[in-house]
């Protein structure tokens, strides 16, 4: 394992830094590599780096679980897993070669394969963290099923580092598919509604979908014997589509100064007037560059979804049960030292007490 991942355990130092911050009532901005900064997800005045707290703690391919420290580079983990014929069970974005595991968990983002597979949250089995009392606490574990106590490890996924400093995480893995093929089809935006039911017929072999510029890209993954029988009658053109560039938001599409993402219930019709669009998750996620964010937020909320702005004009955050967010934040971090600005910006921690 060591040939892939450098080993540095900085738990004690990180704990001491949190205790110091507590003593001085000094807020901490937690940062890994900072690779998600351009997506609006890194605290201003970041002051606690977990980037050098790294290394794999436990990986036994039989278990389909890996436990690694928060600062471990995702790319190193991917190489290690691939060398054993495995991958993360979730489709985890890796914005740059420096991007860390801890950052991925804190952001809780999912790539294009999420709609046909599992979410990152679904694959978090355990987590060790420094809480806002300066204690190191461990929840969940390395086993597939575990209902001892509340599920406080999954709660860290998408919490943007507002509940504690993640030290290490155990994630569920999956076998790499034997074969993977992408087919492209010329499809106009208004024809997509007819394509989604066809996509359902391709389950369980379909593993991702994406539509952009009049082309629908469908990825099939599975046993070679199965794909070889399905592909001849499927139509479309074989194409080397860069799914990782889409997953990691590295495609040119994502470079815009105004970028937002609409999350919708499945099969929700959504007309978008302004800006350029890219769809994945069989249309349940729509990326918009150069859009009108307040207008998009109104439209998406009417449709039962929500908007996330990555760049450009911000919109007020909408979370379920904001009061519960405040109470849980208080339960983990009574002095409010972890990423306080992110908490109020993203989870509406400011108003309506």
């Amino acid at each position, binding site marked *: 394992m060591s040939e892939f991942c450098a080993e540095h355990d900085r738990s004690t130092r990180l704990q001491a830094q949190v205790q110091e911050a507590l003593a001085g009532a000094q807020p901490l901005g937690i940062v890994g590599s900072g690779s998600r900064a351009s997506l609006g997800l890194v605290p201003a005045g970041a002051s606690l780096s977990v980037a050098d707290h790294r290394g794999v703690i436990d990986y*036994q*391919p*039989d*278990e389909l*679980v890996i436990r690694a420290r928060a600062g471990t580079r995702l790319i190193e983990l991917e190489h290690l897993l691939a060398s054993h014929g495995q991958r993360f069970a979730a489709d985890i974005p890796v914005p740059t070669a420096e991007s860390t595991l801890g950052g991925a968990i804190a952001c809780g983002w*999912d790539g294009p394969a*999420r709609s046909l597979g*599992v*979410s990152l*949250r*679904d694959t978090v089995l355990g987590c060790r963290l420094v*809480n806002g*009392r300066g204690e*190191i*606490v*461990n*929840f969940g*574990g*390395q*086993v*597939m*099923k*575990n*209902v*001892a*106590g*509340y*599920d*406080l490890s*999954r*709660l860290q*996924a*998408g*919490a943007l580092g507002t509940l504690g400093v993640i030290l290490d995480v155990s994630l569920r893995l999956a*076998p790499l598919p034997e074969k993977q093929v992408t087919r492209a089809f010329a499809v106009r935006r208004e024809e997509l509604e007819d394509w989604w039911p066809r996509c*359902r017929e391709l*389950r369980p*072999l379909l593993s991702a979908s994406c539509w952009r510029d009049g082309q629908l890209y469908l990825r099939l993954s*599975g046993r*070679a*014997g*199965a794909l070889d*029988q399905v592909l001849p009658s499927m139509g479309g053109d074989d194409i080397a589509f860069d799914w990782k560039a889409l997953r990691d938001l590295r495609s040119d599409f994502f470079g815009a100064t105004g970028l937002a993402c609409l*999350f*919708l*219930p*499945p099969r929700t019709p959504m007309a978008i007037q302004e800006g350029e669009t890219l769809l994945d998750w069989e249309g349940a*996620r729509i990326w918009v560059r150069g859009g009108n964010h307040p207008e998009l937020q109104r439209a998406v909320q009417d449709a039962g*979804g*929500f908007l*996330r702005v990555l760049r450009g004009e911000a919109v007020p*955050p909408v*979370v*379920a*049960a904001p009061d*519960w967010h405040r109470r*849980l934040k208080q*339960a*983990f971090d009574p002095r409010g030292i972890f990423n306080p600005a992110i908490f109020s910006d*993203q989870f509406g921690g400011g108003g309506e007490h």
Partner: protein
Amino acid sequence: MSAEALLTELRSRLPAECLLTQREQIAPFECDALPVYCSRPLAVVLAQSEAHVVAVATACHRHQVPLVTRGAGTGLSAGAKPIEAGVLLVTAAMNRILELDRDAMTARVEPGAVNLQVSRAAAPLGLYYAPDPSSQIACSIGGNVAENAGGVHCLKYGVTVQNVVALRVVTAEGQVVLLGSQCLSQPGYDLLALLHGSEGCLGIITEVTVKLTPLPEDTRTLMADFSCVRAASDAVSAIVRAGVIPAALEMMDALAISATEAFCHAGYALDAAAILIIDLDGDPREVEAELLLVEEVLGRSGATRVQLAADDVQRALWWKGRKSAFPAIGRLSPDYYCIDGTVPRHRIGDVLEAIQSFAVNYDLRVANVFHAGDGNLHPIIMFDGREPDVLERVERLAADILEYCIAVGGSITGEHGVGLEKINQMAVQFSDAEIAQFMAIKEALDPQRLLNPDKQIPELARCQEYRALRRSHE
């Protein structure tokens, strides 16, 4: 608190038939499916709607009376045992399936809807609800969420939390909160997951939107016999290592095989030390390829015989045996006690051997029938309750087994929950700081500690006492 004031308020807010206060009316609700723990509550409310739930929660909050919620009462950890000075709220009668959405592949149901009924209702759409606890003919979806129930097919399809997209929850203060949606992502903290497995301690579930799964086009079942338990255990890891995720991967040891075979003649090998029953499902061409792979791995792992079920009749028979293992063992022994722990897959062999040696120490027998694929053990301790001191021996054997699970990197419960049953072992699995963190969560969402307050999370003083007691036994 004033019991009379509470009852007066409940009488004014609820239809008379919903409120039970007479001793003989309450008696059936004194325990869940772990009847060694029972007590009689002040009153039982049979809620028919969310409005009733809100009325009860609001009244209990106003009068500071503890409130325990239960669904069908099939829980195995006494998580739904009433509290004597409290109210027991039963949501079993809220059992409607409100909506089936073919496009979104979801079902919106009331908490009392029975697990298997949801799958039956979805079947005409070619869909089903994947988590299938052994009690699925009786257990309610609300209870499944509260316990984060598992089942035979969670290795591939996940447990309850991976199969629920939204909840309506009534808080300790009587407010209705909506968590989750049909979207495949949610902003903010994963509150939906926090409620799963919270054992009725954080909120009361009044509606559940579950994810439905397409019925697999093809399902094939293999049965492999082994002449030693260790080889069967190692085969489980070898299958996963070969890159196959079976829909189900179950194991039975010799004692469980002989009990079950006598009960329902499933065709199990009576001379085997262990058998594995394996379901492969999905695209027929993939299933075909994986069958070959698994058969090859089983042969290499020392299986003495590998059979493929000839048809659905034989498949159903093999599974009937597996699913009736508990009543079958009940016929061999006047009493039995089923426990629930999880361990890393590659330690299953070690743990099964340890269980047998612990059992000898207490002069008890243990049968094993369990979800081997996800390392979820269900040791069944067989005993005769008429023997003096036997309950104490059973309890100590169970504690030894659970604590061994922790020692090898596992957990004291995979799917049955902590309830009252395993509250002592929480002190072994978690440090004081961790228990205090759980308590802080509880107090954040239920500051008066009214919702199921005596379950799941032990007081710190109790933890310290228990640890001291265990040390004195060593």
